[in-house]
């Protein structure tokens, strides 16, 4: 049996499902507003619901960062307007310390989970998987709908926690006990913390329902000829993302259940030998371990950064190849490195805990495993660079954001080597260096991937284009701004400036950064305003954007561009197309691109 037959021999598997879905496609119900836009079971609509909810969350989460940057840039100034809006949380026009902690906590939670997990992989897994593997819809459209609505309920609970009297959770986005376990420890550990835990538990359910669907759709619903190794890298990335989520979120869930018991049932899973300053009392709890929570949290927490990053990587691979008019370089190496990242993601969690009392001997293993991630990451970076090398580049907004992603991923990845070393981490942990590292490599890079995805697939989503001028302004200000905000933080971190501090004016050694802090704050306000420009562009273009007139505006080889310009529920009007080749036949045999649906010619070499 030849290699080719080995890899592509089982493609007839999916035919049985085509039958089922064809009959399902045949009868279009009369759709009401409710079934079409609210409780929709169409994966494309659910994707848009995730995206728009994510955008709203991103505005809220971004606004939080503007508020605390105001405090950090102008610690001795007062802004009376803040008191008008926020009341007691900004008494006298100054952000209060408790509220500052709440702001950083909610900023992290919202952006990590609600924007870059649900908003990013929720959107693009839903949108792209059925379209790119050639399926009418997800394996279970009903569960898919539930996935969004669990996310929606989680969002509502999290929003409501902003309005309770004692304020939202304020123990950091990681919510370490004992602070998070003891209601008497701080205002934010009272009902706000309960709402945070409930919201996150609902979020885990949503992510599980979504993830199961993504995995079974990819494994089971591929169209005829779409073998695993003919799938676009986006689908591979979303597959690994879903598996990571399925295996890591339940551990967080367990951790949260134990935390809830510690809060309300008098247990001591995480508590031992505690004296509480606020009540001047020693607590009876014995035998627990606060470090245990950190293990459970980071067993999710580290895969989580790849849950955020992998979809962006997949989309960037696809967009770079399409717009360089060249096949992706090292397709199999890309898959292998994503798989390696996936495996390593589960083996490095304790590098977040080097200084919590972890055995240094154990730490050295985690250093080794952590630094190993540099290998697949570097493979991916070199593959992206060789993909665009001597390519026929088209600088669409999506392409620019993809290039920006690669730039951010390199800059942020390199500092990962610093913080991944347990010895250097003694100095660097909990400083602005860490903030700079993960914001660039995970936050900004994934945002760039998300923007690239939105600009690239917006025509497929809404049948219209986004405005290019606004897009270019958006890109350049965001790229330059992101570097201006986060690059200087490396220097602050190396100088020892700690994160989560309200005000540095009390430390003479940090006074030298006063001007720099103001500068960062000003830039972050500008960058935030630029994101609003994108939001305007997005909503304006849904209704008034330039109409898409050709089926395949980017000249792309993948299946989603063989659907009608505005595909209905079921995606393809007639038969689902059959796939004959991989997704990256660009610039082959003198042709710009060859769609996956085109049979391999007699004289053509087969992938």
């Amino acid at each position, binding site marked *: 049996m030849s290699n080719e037959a080995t890899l592509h021999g*089982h493609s007839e598997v999916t035919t049985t499902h085509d039958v089922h879905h064809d009959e399902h496609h045949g009868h279009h119900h009369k759709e009401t507003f409710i079934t079409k836009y609210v409780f929709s079971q169409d994966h494309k609509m659910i994707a848009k619901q995730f995206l728009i909810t994510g955008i709203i969350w991103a505005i809220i989460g971004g606004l939080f960062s503007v508020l605390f940057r105001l405090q950090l840039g102008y610690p001795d100034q007062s802004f009376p307007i803040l008191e008008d809006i926020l009341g007691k949380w900004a008494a006298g026009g100054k952000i209060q310390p408790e509220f500052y902690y709440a702001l950083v906590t909610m900023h992290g939670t919202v952006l990590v989970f609600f924007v870059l997990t649900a908003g990013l992989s929720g959107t693009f897994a839903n949108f792209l998987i059925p379209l790119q593997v050639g399926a009418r819809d997800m394996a279970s459209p009903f569960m898919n709908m539930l996935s969004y609505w669990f996310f929606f309920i989680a969002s509502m609970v999290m929003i409501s926690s902003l309005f309770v009297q004692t304020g939202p959770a304020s123990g950091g986005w990681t919510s370490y006990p004992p602070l998070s376990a003891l209601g008497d420890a701080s205002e934010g550990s009272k009902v706000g913390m309960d709402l945070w835990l409930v919201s996150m538990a609902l979020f885990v359910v949503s992510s599980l329902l979504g993830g199961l669907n993504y995995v079974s759709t990819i494994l089971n619903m591929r169209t005829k000829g779409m073998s695993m190794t003919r799938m676009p890298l986006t689908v591979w990335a979303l597959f690994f993302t879903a598996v990571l989520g399925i295996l890591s979120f339940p*551990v967080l869930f367990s951790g949260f259940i134990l935390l809830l018991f510690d809060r309300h049932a008098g247990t001591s899973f995480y508590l031992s030998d505690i004296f509480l300053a606020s009540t001047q009392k020693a607590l009876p709890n014995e035998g627990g371990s606060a470090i245990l929570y950190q293990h459970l949290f980071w067993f999710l927490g580290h895969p989580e950064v790849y849950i955020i990053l992998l979809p962006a990587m997949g989309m960037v691979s696809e967009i770079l190849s399409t717009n360089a008019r060249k096949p992706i370089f090292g397709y199999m190496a890309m898959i292998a490195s994503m798989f390696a990242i996936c495996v390593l993601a589960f083996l490095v969690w304790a590098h977040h805990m080097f200084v919590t009392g972890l055995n240094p001997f154990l730490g050295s293993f985690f250093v080794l495993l952590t630094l190993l991630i540099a290998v697949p990451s570097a493979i991916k970076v070199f593959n992206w660079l060789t993909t665009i090398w001597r390519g026929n580049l088209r600088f669409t907004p999506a392409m620019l954001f993809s290039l920006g992603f690669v730039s951010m991923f390199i800059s942020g990845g390199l500092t990962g080597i610093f913080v991944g070393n347990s010895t250097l981490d003694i100095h660097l942990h909990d400083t602005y260096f860490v903030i700079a590292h993960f914001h660039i490599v995970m936050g900004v890079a994934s945002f760039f991937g998300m923007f690239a995805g939105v600009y690239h697939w917006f025509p497929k989503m809404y049948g219209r284009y986004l405005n290019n001028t606004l897009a270019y302004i958006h890109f350049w200000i965001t790229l330059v701004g992101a570097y201006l905000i986060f690059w200087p933080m490396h220097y602050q971190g190396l100088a020892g400036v700690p994160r989560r501090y309200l005000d540095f004016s009390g430390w003479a050694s940090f006074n030298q950064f006063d001007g720099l802090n103001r500068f960062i704050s000003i830039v972050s306000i500008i960058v935030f305003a630029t994101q609003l420009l994108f939001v305007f562009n997005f909503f304006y273009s849904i209704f008034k954007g330039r109409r898409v007139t050709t089926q395949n505006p980017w000249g792309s080889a993948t299946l989603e561009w063989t659907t009608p310009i505005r595909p209905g529920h079921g995606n393809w009007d007639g038969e689902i197309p059959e796939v004959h080749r991989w997704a990256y036949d660009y610039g082959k045999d003198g042709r710009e691109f060859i769609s996956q649906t085109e049979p391999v010619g007699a004289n053509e070499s087969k992938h």
Partner: protein
Amino acid sequence: MAQAVPAEQKWWSGGRSPFNVEYGKLMMWYFLMSDAFTFGAFLISYGTIRFSSNSWPDPNEVFQSFPGLGSGYPLAFVSLMTFILIISSVTMVLAVQAGHAMDKKGVVKNLIWTIIGGLAFLSCQAWEWTHLFHEGAWWGRNPFVNMDGSQASTNFTNFFFTITGFHGFHVFSGVIINIIMLIMVLNNVFERRGHYLMIEKAGLYWHFVDLVWVFVFTCFYLI
């Protein structure tokens, strides 16, 4: 390969591709993997705390009562519980088997036995919890002393009630699922569909819950 394989033959040596199962079954397997990680996290947390403690209560001392007989029968009652649950797995297998043969009567009979087994297990657990509660054990309260005679932390009971409770909740869900399956069978839903695959998926869940109990049982009663 010793023999020449025809080019058309699938490359999975069993002849059936693992992708060739119905998507719902695939989802169930992935869900079970996810759930295994939930229980894994609980049990590893339990192990971590237990091994960081100097000593721990002796299960032979704690679990030695049998309803109607009083105390002095270490682990007898939990053995009965475990036996009931494992037997209910056997009847579930028989139900799945009957489903493959499109034998509606056999499915109904064995599903009913499985439901009875599940309810019996839950009743046993309810009795055991009540009994322990009357001995003074609950979340945050531990009347039992360590094996070495020293004062025990409350984490023995904390973990016991949390993890067996979480498992009991799974059994409860399994019973509900089985009851729904039974109603669907009685309404001829699967006869009309032409296959009893749903019974098989419910069976997967039920076996998983049983398997988890084996680990929970080992961790809390035997070690």
